[in-house]
């Protein structure tokens, strides 16, 4: 069981073991049930203060973390870049140290720079949870996708998941690839070559599929990424209509799937671009399950990180097993 224990921070899925990822998912299952109770709150993190430090816009992830914190009885403070001293040029570390001086225990951080979460984690004592750093990772999104798939399939081993769209700029894709592969799934990526990482086969251990029809034929699940509209302006794709025509997941294309296929999307969706409304709201979609599971995995991470310190563990050892 100790192999499933987490360290001080959750920065990525790449550095976690399969046992650690499984421990988070296993913990998320009973915690998910807390949200189904009449009183959706347990006293587990009573007295802990969490700062949600969002240097990039986010509604879904921030709200999801906030629900997770509140359902575990932690006190949450939201700090958004706009309107805070961040916009006056205060550095990431200064902001966090100031919060720490007010005695916070955990920081949830989203930042536009890859590696920002680790940079912070190395410099402050609080637990740090990465809520998305640049194009690096978004580990809790990866975890919620894993939980959603595991709920449907029981196990991920031997299953095939294709991540579709702008994999190059996607921290969601990176967390998914690492998490899925560690739990034994086969992973492919599909999209315009301009939006796929170079040498992905070797660097990430994934298969590259060029046509969405072939991806649908191959996969047990598609995780369809949001196409950032800025990518068109930057010249990665000719037009949104063209993208939808070639790579859009439509009902007509899905109807040719040889097996039951699950459709995931991290949101927010561009309906009619990467995914059609028929598909997003259709029987294959588990998109709202992902949202529900997001709160559960974030509760699990908050619970597992905020454990006693190792030095305190020895002192309490003898008392831990009693009734």
């Amino acid at each position: 069981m100790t192999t499933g224990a987490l360290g001080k921070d959750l920065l990525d899925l790449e550095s976690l073991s399969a046992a650690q990822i499984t421990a988070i998912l296993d913990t998320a299952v009973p915690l998910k049930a807390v949200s189904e109770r009449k009183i959706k709150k347990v006293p587990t993190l009573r007295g802990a203060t969490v700062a949600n430090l969002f240097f990039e816009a986010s509604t879904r992830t921030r709200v999801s973390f906030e629900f997770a914190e509140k359902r575990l009885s932690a006190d949450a403070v939201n700090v958004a870049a706009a309107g805070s001293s961040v916009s006056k040029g205060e550095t990431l570390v200064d902001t966090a140290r100031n919060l720490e001086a007010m005695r916070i225990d955990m920081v949830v951080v989203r930042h536009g720079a890859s590696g920002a979460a680790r940079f912070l984690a190395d410099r402050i004592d609080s637990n740090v949870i990465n809520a998305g750093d640049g194009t690096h990772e978004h580990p809790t999104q990866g975890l919620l996708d894993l939980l959603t798939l595991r709920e449907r399939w029981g196990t991920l081993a031997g299953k095939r998941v294709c991540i579709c769209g702008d994999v190059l700029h996607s921290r969601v894709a990176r967390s998914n690839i690492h998490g899925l592969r560690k739990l034994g799934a086969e992973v492919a990526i599909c999209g315009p070559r301009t939006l796929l990482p170079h040498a992905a086969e070797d660097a990430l251990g994934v298969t590259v599929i060029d046509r969405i029809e072939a991806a649908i034929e191959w996969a047990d699940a598609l995780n369809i990424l949001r196409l950032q509209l800025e990518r068109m302006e930057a010249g990665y794709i000719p037009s949104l209509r063209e993208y939808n025509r070639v790579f859009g997941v439509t009902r007509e294309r899905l109807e040719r799937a040889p097996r039951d296929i699950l459709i995931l999307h991290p949101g927010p969706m561009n309906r009619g671009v990467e995914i059609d409304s028929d598909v997003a709201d259709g029987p294959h979609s588990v998109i709202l399950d992902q949202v529900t599971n997001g709160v559960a995995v974030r509760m699990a991470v908050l619970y597992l990180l905020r454990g006693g310190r190792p030095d305190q563990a020895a002192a309490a050892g003898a008392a831990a097993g009693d009734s």
Partner: protein
Amino acid sequence: MSAPTVLLDARACERTLRRMADEIVERTGGTDGLVLVGIQRRGVHLAARLAALIDAREGGAVPRGALDITLYRDDLQSIGPRPVVGTTDLPVDIDGTIVVIVDDVLYTGRTVRAALDELADFGRPARILLAVLIDRGGQELPIRADVVGKTVSALPDQNVDVRVAELDGEDGAFLTRRGPSAA
């Protein structure tokens, strides 16, 4: 470590559970509104056994549930790696019911305190009773059991080890000396 002392063997366990089942119904005056809730993990199996014995004697089907009190523990900040969270599953709305909390051993009373807090988050029973197979003494809170299988006075360096066939392959209760580095 010295050989364990047998507090209850399998036959004695069976007899004791039968008496406890009778005592529960005696105290609650029947099975109307009765719910048996076991504390994870061995309490859940003991609750199922007691419920089956009550069903056989009284007819009907007493609802049985499971309570995992991990999220309500008062020592989470000090016990090192987080304990595994199990399932809480209450089959019925507990408002106005008579809930019998079932556990294997009553020691400090902190588990029962946590269970009472957790039950309060699910509803407001008319009455809550506590049934334990072994009351080993040493309570640190003002908590007492209503139905007890066997009372023993165990020393702080002794463990009371209850085994149930569903999890351990045999029924029984044993007194062992705690090893110097036991956790």
